[in-house]
């Protein structure tokens, strides 16, 4: 088991460009989360999928961020018109049962917006 896989590890975009981040959860895990980590804000919840269905996106900046889970083996986080304040480490995590048990995190994608 390779754990939660996130790609790319690093991404640099220019202001206004689009960024797509990928996550492959652990096989068989039904809950998938996206978090954003910065030094100032710490770990912020973005969105949550259960059995591929979007359950809660209350942490997502509404206008430019979107997340999808087209199948049980991957999820994407898309940021349109990236801004410097979007620079952060984006973390994907999965758990085996509806988010009530231990979370397993990927290594994250470090996004830098110039």
């Amino acid at each position: 088991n390779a754990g939660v896989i996130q790609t790319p590890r690093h991404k640099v975009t220019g202001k206004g460009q689009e960024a797509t981040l990928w996550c492959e959860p652990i096989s068989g895990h039904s809950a998938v989360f996206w978090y954003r980590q910065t030094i100032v804000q710490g770990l912020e919840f973005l969105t949550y999928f259960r059995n591929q269905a979007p359950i809660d996106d209350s942490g997502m900046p509404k206008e430019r961020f979107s997340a999808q889970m087209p199948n049980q083996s991957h999820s994407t986080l898309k940021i349109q018109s990236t801004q410097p304040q979007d620079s952060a480490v984006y973390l994907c995590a999965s758990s085996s049962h509806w988010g009530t048990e231990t979370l397993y995190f990927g290594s994250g994608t470090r996004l830098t917006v110039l």
Partner: protein
Amino acid sequence: GQQVQQSPASLVLQEGENAELQCNFSSTATRLQWFYQHPGGRLVSLFYNPSGTKHTGRLTSTTVTNERRSSLHISSSQTTDSGTYFCAGTNAYKVIFGKGTHLHVLP
């Protein structure tokens, strides 16, 4: 207010010393977990400890649910223990993290 609060924010130890990290959580953040993050590394679960005491190696987690507090004790610290320790509580399905305790163990 903050649902999960950790103290201290940072801690410097000499190798071999013990460490006690504290976590206080609101009534809406239950099912406590402790995570560790090495600088530049991924978050790794240390304990899923909603109540009681759990041990693994030199680590001990104690959660007193009705007092809404949890602690992580590191005995005989080593330089490899350096990193950030996060306490997290679950609000329904959403895992809410504290700001973390940054631990630096000196050789």
